């Protein structure tokens, strides 16, 4: 897998250049019989290839072994809420706040953001290209009954899409032009390309998948389209009797917001796509992003 190997090497190179200052591994040397850290996260972090760079880097630095379970944000939060994960990395701020309020998480740290975009067939039958407001674009798509693909899988992307339709005061569910794929971002983009349909995508996956899709960028830049990722270690006190790997979960969360990691995130994808796939945000306040 030359592409994969290249990505890993790039990540390591960035790590060596950026973080050679010799920060001690936060959790000491690798020990035998340490339980693995179960990370529940979204498909976008895996489909974009970011985790293939970050996870080996974390394992090397900390000595913890990570078991990454890439599911939709909804499922990742559910696994965390059942004590089946030690830390979650997701992108659905509203759902996360509720999850935290329910006492599932020890803390919630801002990691990075990119943005969602509306993509569609280059012929643009609904005439939305270049619109500034996502809600207006959806309004036109509904008006023209242009085919729209919804993931409908409770992922972060799906949750934001539902929110956008609500903002546009439309309820497309059940309409013949409103197609639900029930699949991850990559597969949904392929489907949209094949059906010449519009869909909402995170920019990272779109950039990684752009070639050969037959889709064009239609709408971007609306603050409502911001895609923000948080890391949240699971709160061990909520699960008496279940051995949550608190130390491992906390270590991963700290790793995600550490300066070297943030630099790797900021550089990730630049070489391949000419622009970064994510913007590092550790230490910032959500309001600084315009949320």
């Amino acid at each position, binding site marked *: *897998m030359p592409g994969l190997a290249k990505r890993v090497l790039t990540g390591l190179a960035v790590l060596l250049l950026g973080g050679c200052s010799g920060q001690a591994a936060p959790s000491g040397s690798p020990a035998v019989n340490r339980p693995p850290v179960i990370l529940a996260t979204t*498909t976008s972090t895996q489909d974009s*290839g970011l985790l293939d760079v970050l996870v080996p880097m974390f394992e090397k630095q900390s000595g913890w072994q990570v078991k990454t379970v890439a599911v939709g944000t909804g499922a990742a939060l559910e696994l965390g809420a059942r004590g*089946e994960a030690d830390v979650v990395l997701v992108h659905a701020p509203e759902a996360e706040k509720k999850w935290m309020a329910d006492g599932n998480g020890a803390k919630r740290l801002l990691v990075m953001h990119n943005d969602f975009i509306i993509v569609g067939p280059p012929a643009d039958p609904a005439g939305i290209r270049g619109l500034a407001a996502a809600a207006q674009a959806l309004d036109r798509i509904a008006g023209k009954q242009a085919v729209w693909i919804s993931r409908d899988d409770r992922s972060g992307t799906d949750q934001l899409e539902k929110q956008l339709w609500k903002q546009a005061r439309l309820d497309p569910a059940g309409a013949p032009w409103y197609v639900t794929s029930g*699949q991850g971002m990559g597969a949904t983009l392929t489907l949209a390309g094949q059906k010449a349909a519009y869909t909402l995508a995170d920019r990272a996956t779109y950039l990684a998948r752009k070639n050969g899709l037959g889709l064009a960028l239609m709408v971007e830049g609306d603050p409502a389209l911001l895609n923000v990722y948080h890391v949240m270690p699971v709160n061990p006190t909520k699960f008496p009797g*279940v051995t949550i790997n608190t130390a491992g979960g906390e270590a991963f969360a700290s790793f995600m917001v550490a300066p070297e990691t943030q630099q790797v995130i900021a550089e990730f994808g630049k070489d391949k796509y000419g622009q970064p796939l994510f913007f590092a945000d550790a230490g910032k306040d959500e309001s600084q992003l315009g949320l």
Partner: protein
Amino acid sequence: MEVLWQGLRQAGELILTADAELLRILVLSLAVSASATALSALVGIPAGAALAVGRFRGRGVVQTLVNTGMGLPPVVVGLVITILLWRTGPLGFLGLLYTPAAMVLAQFTVAAPIAAGFTQAALELLEPDLAGALRVDGAGSAKLAQELCRAALPQVLVAVAAAFGRAIAEVGASLMVGGNILGQTRTLTTTITLVTSRGEFGLAIALGIILLALALLVNAGLTWRARAAVAA
């Protein structure tokens, strides 16, 4: 269409360069599916033989289980095993979730009924005279089953091959109980699922070709073994 050629070329490249990552995935796929097949044979062949020759209590139940099991949806198997293996689940203390062992368990669950069903069919197709003659000779049920298996060895090996085919081709359950973790539980089929969703169709085809080649090799090996058994 072009992507198919690209995949074929890429498959050749991956094999010729002995790509380290591919090798690891290949070895894991083989190890998991071979273990699952061995367990399936160990349980399935005696079960199939018992169904063919025995008239025991609960035979109807076992028969129904085997028949249904041959069409068991892997995704349901994966879901149930995942929930059982959850930390909060009844088998959580084993710490097996997201390990190759969990994948062996899942593949065994779908492959064992195939081994049993095919073995039973093979033995029942043997000449009834043979069983009769053996019974006259005073063979007990266990002895009878053993002799029949020997007589139908080529077909029993086909049962093993079918179980292996089911195990190595399985993706839904492996994805769920294994988690498709890089370097730990990523097998050929789960990798194909992942790279397809990443849009690396050429690589997906390449891996698909390698998977097919692997299945072909194992089946050819078993068929050859079966022929040798007939000749002997």
